[in-house]
Structures are given as C-alpha cells and as structure tokens.
C-alpha cells in the first residue's frame, strides 16, 4: 500500500508554551483506515490539523504523496489545489465549518473554490445530498439545523470536493445513537469506496466497529503504541494508562464491584469485594 500521508517526527507547541504533540511519526497507506485515539488534550485534533496543512509542525515534517506540506509549499497555488483536492478535513465543531448562507451553498463552496465547472459542482452537491439523506435541507440556513444535520452537512461539504483522504475529528461526538450509527456506516462505505480514512476520536465503539489501524496518543502527547484495533482494545493496561478507560466501584444490589470501565466497550467485572 503506497503511503499517501506521512508524519515524520512532528512536534507542535501552542503559543510556544503548551506542548501539543511530541515527536509523532505515522505513515498512512492509500485507501487505509486509521484512528488516533487518546484522552482529551492528548493532541488528536492538533495532529489532524497538522495533517490537513492548517498548522505546521515546529519540528518534523508532513508529506502528502511524497511532497512536503509546509507553509512555503502551500503558497504554490498548483500544490495548494492539489493538496486541498486530495485532503478533506471535517472539524469537530460543525458550526465552525458551516459559514455559507444555505446548505446547498455549503456543498458548492469547496468545488467552486477549486474552480470546478458549475454544472459538475451542482451534480456533486445533489449526489452528496442524496447520499447523506439531506435532500430536503438544500435551502435551509445552517443555524436552523439540528446537531446531526449539521454534521451531515459538514461531511457533505468536504465530500463534494471528492478528496482521497478524509480527516475526521471526533465525528460521533455529541450525536444521538441513530446519527452515530449512520455516520459509522457512512465512514465504512467511504473506505470501501477507496477513500483513506483517518479519524481522531476517543469513541472506542467506533474503533471497535471500524477496525482501523490505531495509534494511541499518551497524555505526554507522543505515540504510545500503534497496532490493530483488536490488539489495542484488548490492551487494557494501555487504555488505562492513556486515560481511555478507568476503574470505578459500584453496587449490584448489596454487592460492591470494582472494575475497569469504559462507556463504550468495556464493562467487564474483575473483582468482587
């Protein structure tokens, strides 16, 4: 599998003081499925922003199809177009991503910026609306959408650009179970269709369902381990260490239990007091 995005020894600090990533190295193969998991503040979103070329590492490098992605290379309009066409980034907060007057304008924004023919842009927008089941929302302004609808539109706004790589920041966060299920299936189908998927999440259910290659970010902001979903999800000591599961005590009738607990996958009783 050819490498499509590579992160090499990337480190990043906010305001030169708050460390967000330390010496991260990853190689994402074309058509692959990846997830980076970690506790809040571990640097997942920062890693996705680095990979999308929105911020640039203090040290280390990012490559897209073998070409370095830097502030300098993105000044070249041809490379900028090549990169933006290739890599789509879906923000955690959909409100940030929806800035056009209506849903249809949102879907058309990306293709129009890339200079795609108006008719083709409209065809893409209609196709994406059908795929995401938001056909009735075309003329709706974004502030009149529910959380789930906003997420669909945010994803649609990137899909109309038809990128090869999709970077999704906490895609299931704050959504109801049905929308979560819809999104999981959509991500799976997009990957089946050949898109490279890279998710930043702490939703272990999503990781379990999607079975990606998983990179675990520690609270020290470096890569703790890279492995298959099964391998990572079964390593409870690792998940406990990076704060993705926790130990707690509760009662079943009059009996107190202490066990390792995640709100997603793990609810395994270990010891009875």
């Amino acid at each position: 599998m050819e490498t499509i995005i590579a992160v090499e020894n990337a480190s990043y600090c906010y305001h030169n003081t708050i460390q967000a990533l330390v010496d991260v190295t990853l190689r994402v193969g074309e058509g692959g499925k990846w997830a980076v998991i970690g506790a809040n503040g571990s640097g997942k979103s920062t890693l996705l922003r680095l990979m999308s070329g929105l911020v640039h590492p203090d040290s280390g490098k990012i490559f897209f199809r073998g070409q370095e992605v830097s502030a300098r290379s993105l000044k070249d309009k041809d490379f900028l177009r090549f990169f933006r066409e290739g890599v789509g980034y879906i923000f955690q907060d959909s409100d940030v991503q929806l800035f056009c007057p209506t849903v249809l304008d949102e879907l058309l924004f990306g293709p129009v910026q890339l200079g795609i023919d108006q008719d083709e842009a409209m065809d893409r927008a209609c196709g994406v609306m059908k795929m995401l089941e938001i056909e009735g929302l075309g003329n709706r302004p974004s502030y009149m959408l529910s959380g789930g609808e906003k997420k669909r539109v945010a994803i649609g706004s990137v899909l109309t650009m038809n990128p090869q790589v999709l970077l999704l920041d906490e895609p299931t966060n704050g959504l109801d179970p049905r929308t979560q299920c819809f999104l999981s299936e959509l991500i799976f189908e997009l990957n089946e269709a050949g898109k490279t998927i890279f998710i930043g999440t702490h939703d272990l259910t999503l990781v379990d369902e999607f079975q990606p290659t998983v990179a675990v970010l520690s609270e020290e902001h470096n890569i703790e381990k890279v492995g298959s979903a099964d391998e990572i999800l079964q390593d409870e000591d690792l998940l406990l260490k990076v704060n993705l599961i926790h130990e707690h005590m509760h009662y079943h009738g009059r009996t107190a239990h202490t066990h390792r607990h995640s709100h997603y996958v793990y609810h395994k009783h270990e010891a009875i007091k």
Partner: protein
Amino acid sequence: MTGAASRMPFLDKSVNHLAALIKTTYIQWDTAHKEGLFQKLDARVKVLFLLFFIIIVSVKRTLLPEVAIGGLVFILAVVSRLDLLSFYGRVLFLGFVFGFLIALPSCLNIVVEGEVIMPIMHLSEPYQFWVYRIPETIGITRQGLDVVFILTLRVINSLSISFLVIYTTPFQEIMKALKSLRVPDTFLMIITLSYKYIFIFAQTFEDIHLAKKGRTVKANAAEARSWVAGRMGFLLRRTRTRCEEVFNAMLARGFCGEVAIHNWGKVGKMDIMSGAGLLLAGCFVLFI
C-alpha cells in the same frame, strides 16, 4: 432569586432583546416561506423592484405618487399574506422616529419660510444671524407642514418597500440576488459571515448570562456591571478565536484569498412577467 433578577434588570433586558432578535429572524424565515405572491417571485426581481421604487420615492416630491406607492405596497403586503399589524407597526414606528421627528423642525418658519398658520411666539423685532433670519413671529407654516408630511410619507414608503422585500425573501436569497447584480463576492461573504455571527454571538451571550444567573444567589449591581465589562472582553476573545477557526475551515475547503460563489440560473418567465408588471407600475408612478 427574584431579588437577584431585580437588581440587574439591564442584563435581563439585554439578554431578552438578543433572544428576541433570534426569534424575529425565525419569524422572518417563516413569513418568507409563506404561500404569498411576493414570496414566489425571484429574489433578483424583488431586489430590482426595491432599488427602482426607492429611487422613485426619492425623486418624487408630491403627494399623489407617494400615496400611489403606499397603496401599491399595501396591496402587495396583503397578497403576500403578511401580518399587516406587525408590518405597519414597525413601519410606522420607524417612520415616526426617522421621518416625522427628524423633519418636525421644518414646519417652523425659521427653517422653511411661508404662510404662518399657527403662531407660537412673538419677538420684539426680527433678528439676522449670518445667513439665518429669525422672523418677528415664530410659527408653523403651511409650506413647512407640507414638507414634514411629504418627507414622513417618503420615509414610510421607503421603509415599507424595504420591509416588504425583507419579510418575503429569505436572507440567503437576497445574497444570491446581490450576487447576480454583480456585487463583489468578497463583500457578500463578509455580509454572510457577519449575519451568521449575530446568531452565534446572541446564543453565546445568552448561555453565559444564564450560566451566571444559575449560580447567582445574591446579586450586587456594581459586581454585575464589572462582570458584564469582563464578559465583553471574554466575548471579544472568543470572537477572535472563532474567526480564526472559521478561516481555517475556509482554507481547508480550498479558499485561497479570492472568494468565489456559485452562479445561479436564469430568471423564469413568470418572474419576468411580474417584474415587467412592477416596472410598468413604477413608470406609471414616475409620470403622475
């Protein structure tokens, strides 16, 4: 808690006004999607109608054309199924403030000379200051009253035409119409972002206020003022952060400094016919 609320009425009022702003917009969205005549028209035709009739209102200075325009707008408001009480309530209030009150001094013979029909005060002799002359008898003139009446009518007509278009056209359609009229894309993008920001700002402010209110047992007016000042700075910082995030979202979707917005299709036959009808009506008013 009721005591807390009564000690900070200005805060509650401001928040209520912001909430009302959001509600008003939802109502505008609702009226703009009613099954009325004007709602069905293409936004481009409506924007052209607005510009054309505002020019006519500005050009005509006699009673008959203004009354004719007022009548036309009234008919259009009725067939567009607008809530006439709310519609004319706003128009008349703003017309009173920005038309009548501002023009009111013009009815005195100090501003507009003419036949005094209602004397107000008498001076011992007339005075002359530079180019201004204060007559011996200060009063309301017939010509001055005409000026105030016509000016108020013109303001009311301008407002009612604008409200008619705004109430029957969703914001995004107005933007598309402006795009068709060759208004620069960058300018439209700025208006759209600013419009959207109003809602986010109002929502954030309301959330902050309610979060504070939910934790306030004993209120102190001085503390409340200090808190408001602090939160203004906080909102400004949040605004800047959000602005950067939205800009990043634009960059991620291919924006490279030059805004491009999708072009919209041709105007339909019905819209052209309606536009022609409005144009004829405008020309008729122009020549009476």
